[in-house]
């Protein structure tokens, strides 16, 4: 068994279903995450279970339309019940959601047992983690070229058709109502004054989330729906600050996650010659891994960037402080300082890096553990001390601090890009401002 082989019969439809789910949920999830409703997706995907079973018990078919209707109604009932419990019962939102969806889910589990008595194959497990692997295309064409023919359409499983409709619908929904969704998400009051209802947007969004859950329950299961609703949008949220690019990024991430997750589900176990694992579960895990990578390595908000930025700042502050220390020593007639002296004053700060960078820029000379200013270093150091003393003057004159309380604040202000107002010639302690 080779790890990476694409078999049209075995892989085409499951992978399509996974990608379509990813696209549908990925795009809708952006607005859930923005409106802090991520868990509404979770609640709905749990509580569509009784809707599905009741629809099934009434219609006694697994026809997609009946199922869809039942689940969509269950989804809206969930939203309405959560609102109701929140308002009438004055229950905290999280708790209200927890009460509603767990009770509805329990009802669903009970009803499934009821359905099982009628010898019906309706499995709660399948609702949770789907049956992607059963979307097999028997007598599939051998070559990729054979797929592009008319009778392929006749073989497409109805789960995939439903997902495709849902995906197109969600993309159209978001594309057409992007402006309205954006305003409703960021500023509901503005939406009202613009003449459309933020509440209506909310309901529409919930209908689509319920629809996405239903369309995908049979193929991929609700756990993947939750993962895809939240993770790609959250990942994209860490990568960009604009909603439009966030939506596009989340789409890309969702598709990437689906493909990698699906491949990993069969390829990784195959390395140890084991059978493949649940593709839906594997995609959820990959979604999590992608998110962790983004948290660590996102260019603007990532941990690495933040650590590097902080380190660079600490280094430049230390460099300024070294220059200032040398300048002050020169004022009292000592034109060089021992490295040991600096080490004493710079405990816990990146002294070595700052010294190296200053001497690279030709600001200081480091010779045999003694440090002195160069010609260009002298003016840079004077500039730092000038800023410090000007700030001290400002703090006394304008802010009204006592002269002996200004040093610590000025020590921080001197590193700012913003310049203190110039003019005075001596600082509050009587020292000359360079």
């Amino acid at each position: 068994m080779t790890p990476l082989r694409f078999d049209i019969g075995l892989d085409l439809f499951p992978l399509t279903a996974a990608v379509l789910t990813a696209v549908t949920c990925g795009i809708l999830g952006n607005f859930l995450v923005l409106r802090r409703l991520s868990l509404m997706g979770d609640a709905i995907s749990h509580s569509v279970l009784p809707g599905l079973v009741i629809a099934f018990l009434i219609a006694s078919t697994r026809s997609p339309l009946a199922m869809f209707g039942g689940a969509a109604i269950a989804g809206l009932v969930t939203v309405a019940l959560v609102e109701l419990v929140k308002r009438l019962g004055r229950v905290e939102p999280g708790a209200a959601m927890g009460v509603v969806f767990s009770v509805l889910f329990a009802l669903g589990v009970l009803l499934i047992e009821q359905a099982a008595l009628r010898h019906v194959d309706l499995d709660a497990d399948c609702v949770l983690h789907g049956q992607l692997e059963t979307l097999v295309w028997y007598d599939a064409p051998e070559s990729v070229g054979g797929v592009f023919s008319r009778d392929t359409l006749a073989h497409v499983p109805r789960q995939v058709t439903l997902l495709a409709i849902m995906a197109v619908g969600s993309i159209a929904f978001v594309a057409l109502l992007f402006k309205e969704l954006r305003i409703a998400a960021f500023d509901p009051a503005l939406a009202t004054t613009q003449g459309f209802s933020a509440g209506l947007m909310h309901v529409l969004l919930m209908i689509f989330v319920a629809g996405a859950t239903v369309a995908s329950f049979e193929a991929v299961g609700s756990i993947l729906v939750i993962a895809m609703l939240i993770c790609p949008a959250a990942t994209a949220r860490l990568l960009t600050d604009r909603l439009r690019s966030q939506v596009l990024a989340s789409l890309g991430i969702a598709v990437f996650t689906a493909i990698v997750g699906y491949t990993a589900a069969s390829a990784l176990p195959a390395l140890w010659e084991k059978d493949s694992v649940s593709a839906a579960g594997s995609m959820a895990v990959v979604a999590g891994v992608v998110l962790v990578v983004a948290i660590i390595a996102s260019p603007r908000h990532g941990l690495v960037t933040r650590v590097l930025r902080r380190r660079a700042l600490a280094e430049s502050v230390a460099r300024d402080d070294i220059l200032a220390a040398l300048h002050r020593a020169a004022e009292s007639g000592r034109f060089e300082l021992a490295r040991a002296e600096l080490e004493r004053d710079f405990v816990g700060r990146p002294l070595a890096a700052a010294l190296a960078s200053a001497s690279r820029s030709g600001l200081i000379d480091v010779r045999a553990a003694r440090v002195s200013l160069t010609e260009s270093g002298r003016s840079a150091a004077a500039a730092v001390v000038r800023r410090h003393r000007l700030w001290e003057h400002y703090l006394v004159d304008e802010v009204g601090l006592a002269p002996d309380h200004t040093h610590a604040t000025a020590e921080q202000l001197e590193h700012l890009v913003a310049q203190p107002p110039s003019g005075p010639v001596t600082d509050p302690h009587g020292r000359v401002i360079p």
Partner: protein
Amino acid sequence: MTALPPQSSVASPCCDVATRAHGSLLAQASDPGVGTGNVLGNALGNVRGEFLREVIDTLLLRSGFNTNLVIIGTALLGLAAGVVGVLALLRKRSLTTDALSHATLPGITSAFLAAGWLGLDGRSLPILLLGATITGVLGVIGIQLLLRHTRLREDAAIGIVLSVFFGAGIVGLSWIQRNAATGSSGINAFIYGQAATMSRSDVLLLGVIALLAVAVTLLLLKEFALVCFDESFAKVDGWPVTAIDLAMMSLVVVVTVAGLKAVGVILVVAMLIIPAVAARFWTERLVPLVLLAAAIGAASGYFGSVLSALLPRKPAGAIIVLTAGSLFVVGMLAAPTRGVIAVAWRRFRLRLRIAGDHLLEAAQERRETTLGADALDHVARVGGWSTAFRALVLWTLRRQGMIERVRRALGGHSSELGAEPAASGRGLAHFRITSAGVARGARLVRNHALWEQYLISYADVAPTHVDWSVDQVEHVLSDALVSELEAALRTREARR
């Protein structure tokens, strides 16, 4: 009104189930029978009594060792979950427990696999629960890390941990199902719970865990309350807030893990959330809240497992949660002060009083001591009253002795009465306002004027804008406030 569906839908499967259970009993009863119609008729008569006896036997723990184990185990679990759930509710962490319970699944599967590699029995409960605890704690830490180091909000953090961990658990489950040599039947039970398969040692373990959790909570209740209600004060007062918080979260983890076997990963969260929220309807104080939540939790566990023992093929977890859900609905509707019915009733009473106030006030403003039809009509139209409400307002006022009915024989008002043919059937009386009614009207007019004056002189509201807001406040001014207003306005007047 939309509150009804859950209740009715909760009720319907149960009735359904009850009739079906009758059916199955009927089958049993008729099995050994001779099969003729007569015998069957007798059996049918006995079935009801037999079923009732079975119910009572199960309720009183007389129906066999295994059933009793399950009932005692789930009741204890409910008790502990109720107590600990209060902490989660007060810390606003209800949904964190959801993520936590989902996050235990990968722990269970990894523990199963690890135990297999180490040559231990993968199905032993302590090993599985240890794994569950580890990943559960990792999940909670994960949420905290996401909140601290990214700009994601709490809902997204919870959703991420929940879905990713549960996804990992499902990967583990499918690995076990397809690749592991040993059977995986014990593992699957953790998703939906299988109370019926609990052994004696399982129940003992759960019982000890539950009772320990309850004991710790009660011992540290003062500290927990402090952190729940005023964290900053606790910090300033020198309490180790982080440690106390950690203790609370650990209790939640422990109880969640203990509940996995009985009600399953997905529904254990209901055991933590629902009793606490349901108890919250009935009381405003912490100690009664904890006791009540414990009682509701224990009752759900007890009745839920009794029901599922009586009815074949009913998963205990789901029934327990639905029992708790029904108790929640009862509380939400019927609790004395916070219940929906009580709130609606209070609002209605207030509306009735305000309507009466308006009538008397209107009459007072016109300097009338009778309530004529047109005056009534006017006030009713402005207030948007229905006919029934109008009748109720009049009836209330009469009962309070504010107005009394005067027969039409007086004649002087015949033209006025002619204007209202619709009500002429009974010979619409007009009403005379009694001295008590006049006094009430006068007091309202005075309150209105006082508050209006206050708003104009102190709150700088324009005189043309005052009337509407005052219309609402005038009804709720207390005597103390009125005299304060009088004093304030008098001094201001004097200063001028």
